């Protein structure tokens, strides 16, 4: 009964979206939620499996990140497995919690940024100022990466955090 009512709700959305000019394609699929608990840190992923062979994978926790669209199940498991490995490794660092907090803050900033972009008329000089600050932050992160030793790569998967 629930499935029937849900499918009727999807029909309603479809009609409204079509009237907005959208082409709506419905694909039957299975949504998978994957949870890991690493030393108290919850890692959560979601991916969607459909018969067309596309897997839309994203990390939900500790901070959201669209990982990538992959074409087979092995790819999904490989990406999740590497991601979990990286987190296991990163958690050995004393700064891991700070990095996670910063990543969560960046996610929040993106939401505020999008709200600003879509809902406000911002003067040109302010747009320029924001852009320069973002570039400066990106540059700063690149500089920090350059002076730091790489502890995780394809060749060095067993590297340890300092």
């Amino acid at each position, binding site marked *: *009964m629930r499935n*029937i*009512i849900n*499918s*009727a*709700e999807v*029909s*309603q959305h479809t*009609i*409204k979206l*079509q*009237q907005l*000019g959208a082409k*709506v394609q419905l694909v*039957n699929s299975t949504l998978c939620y994957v949870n890991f608990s690493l030393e108290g840190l919850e890692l959560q992923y979601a991916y969607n499996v459909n*018969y067309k062979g596309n897997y839309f994978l994203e990390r939900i926790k500790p901070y959201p990140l669209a990982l990538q669209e992959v074409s087979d199940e092995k790819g999904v498991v490989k990406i999740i497995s590497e991601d979990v490995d990286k987190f296991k490794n990163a958690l050995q660092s004393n700064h891991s919690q700070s990095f996670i907090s910063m990543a969560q803050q960046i996610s929040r900033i993106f939401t505020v940024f999008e709200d600003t972009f879509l809902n406000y008329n911002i003067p040109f000089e302010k747009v320029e100022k924001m852009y320069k600050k973002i570039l400066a932050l990106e540059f700063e992160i690149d500089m920090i990466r350059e002076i730091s030793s790489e502890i995780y790569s394809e060749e060095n998967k067993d590297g340890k955090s300092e």
Partner: protein
Amino acid sequence: MELYHVVTAIGIFIIIYGVIISEKIHRTTIAVFGAVMLLLFKIITQEQAIDTIDFNTIGLLIGMMIIVSILRRTGAFEYLAIKAAKSVKGDPWKIIAVFSIFTALASALLDNVTTILLIVPITLVITDTLELSPIPFVLPLILASNIGGTATLIGDPPNIMIGSAAGLGFVDFIVNLAPIIVVILAVVILIFRMIYKKQLTITEDKRAKIMAMDENLAIRDAVLLKKGLIVLALTMVGFVLHQYLNFESASVALIGAGLLLLISKVEVEDVLLEIEWPTIFFFTALFILVGGLEAVGVIDFLAQGLLNLTGGDLFFMVILILWGSAIASAFLDNIPFVATMIPLIKSMAAMSAISVTPLWWALALGACLGGNGTLVGASANVIASGMLEKHGQKLGFMSYLKTGFPIMLVSIVLSTIYLIVFYL
């Protein structure tokens, strides 16, 4: 047959029926459990159980579900609904009237639940656009779907079962039931006109929004639409001719389904996923459960009792079956009720010299129209109220009862007059 078998079969049947009514466990789960209990307690053998399943009913249901699943992908229903709403210039009362007629017609050709699934979403889009409560729109559609479904062999599952068991075809149902259904629908629309005509008003800007809707945007696949309509039309021709061509109605539906699956090129797994398998298994299990009662002689015993009660008087039996099945179907699932009544009527036919054909029409009218009596009387009612609830609108048991039950009584009174005048 030993007393142990009789008592066990009756016990299993009553317990399963009780649990189905209580809705504590999914009806399919408990019906399948009851059916396998009959095997476990050796009330019937596996071969006997399979023999009790009416594969004509099952095949007809599956065939029509496949055709509808493919047709739903075309957007034809939404196209027609938007065009209809625009043709009456967005007038709320006229939308209710046109949609009710449209729903009754669709429900005569498709399953009631399917019709509700197709018509209610577009109705909700329209009521959102008009910024009106959807309840005055959806309530008449629920009633119209149950009324329209009564008119044909394929319109409502009880009719499918009755047609298959009694050897009554598509044309038999149209000729015998459609006339009174047209009258009932007209009366019901007039009743709703009295209730809603002056209540529902809209501003010009809302009307303009309806007129701005583009029905062409609703068509998702024009090629599939053409193929679907051709196969649907051929299938309907097949239903009209099936008795003359010596085809079972299930064969017609399955030939149509097979042909449409082949030419539509729709992914077969997607189509089969949309078949209401719980309903199919529910029917299968019910046939076995009732078959168990037949095997131990309970059905014959009840038939004899009914004959004794009515003294074999056809008039009394027709009235009893019509009103009994209407009241029962208003509160109970009409599918298990009809599944039980069918062997009962067949037994009465075997035991007496009376012509039972009017009894089949009384059962069809009572069981199908009775579903309008309460919110739990038919699957279409439950699903429509669930859709309303998801939309943030509550259609409660009592608020439905205030309108649904009197309208059900009116329809049964009209059916009584019809049966008396033309069959008794």
